[in-house]
């Protein structure tokens, strides 16, 4: 390992190339995490308090959510199912 001065153009260019952007969809999904968590928390709380709603989401999650007016991103359904199983 050699210490030398450092930021010639070639080295800067090489270092810049080491950090390409992550796929946009991955970034967007991670950015939506707080909203998604809130949505899951809200639905789980309702399922816990409302036995009729709980029976509906257990029988057919997507149909029950649509009937109740929730527009849940399909990518959240596995996490929501797992959460509802623990309610």
């Amino acid at each position, binding site marked *: *390992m*050699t*210490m*030398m001065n*450092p*930021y010639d*153009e070639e080295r*800067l*260019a090489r*270092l*810049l*190339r*080491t*950090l*390409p*952007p*992550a*796929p946009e969809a*991955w*970034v967007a*999904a*991670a*950015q939506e*995490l*707080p*909203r998604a*968590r809130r949505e899951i928390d809200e639905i789980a709380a309702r399922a816990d308090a409302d036995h009729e709603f709980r029976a509906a989401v257990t029988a057919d999650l997507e149909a029950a959510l649509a009937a109740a007016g929730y527009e849940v991103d399909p990518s959240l359904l596995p996490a929501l199912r797992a959460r509802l199983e623990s309610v």
Partner: protein
Amino acid sequence: MSLGLIADADLVARCRAGDQQAWAELVKRFSRYVYAITSRVYRLSSHDAEDVFQDVFARTFEHLDELRDDASVRPWIATLTRRLCVDKLRSGGREQLVEEPLDGVGTDDALGELDEAMAIHDAMRTLPEHCAEILDRFFTRDESYKTIGEALDLPPGTIASRISRCLSKLRKQLEGRKPRFQPSIDQ
């Protein structure tokens, strides 16, 4: 001050307070870093890299309150990402790969180089208008002068000179900082 310019510690504090825009900025700020660790250092498949990427940010979101020093969020995320990458490799029976050199660069050196690259990205955030974007588009997205010119509404013939000027400005920003890592010439 724009969220893009605030220090890591301030950004973490805002995230902890429930600021959704701050969280979006935190993800944006560290997304390349996490992606590079998963894909470049540990060479996970795209599918595994995506799993780790989402898991890193989910755990960051859940455990932000446990961070002892808000300014240390980057090494904290790095450690978390490494651990999840190793777990992913272990679950796929590829554990020994973690200890093998990658392209002649050991894992620690590769991570040191990513830290150096992150410091450069930090410095880029303070450059004048268009500079960061021009450098990013040219060097990391491999876009042509024509594409960059069209995207930024600039004459393509001026892009090369702008890249050169922006690199000079970036070097000035970085002057006085000690590089933590300098690869040997045989790499």
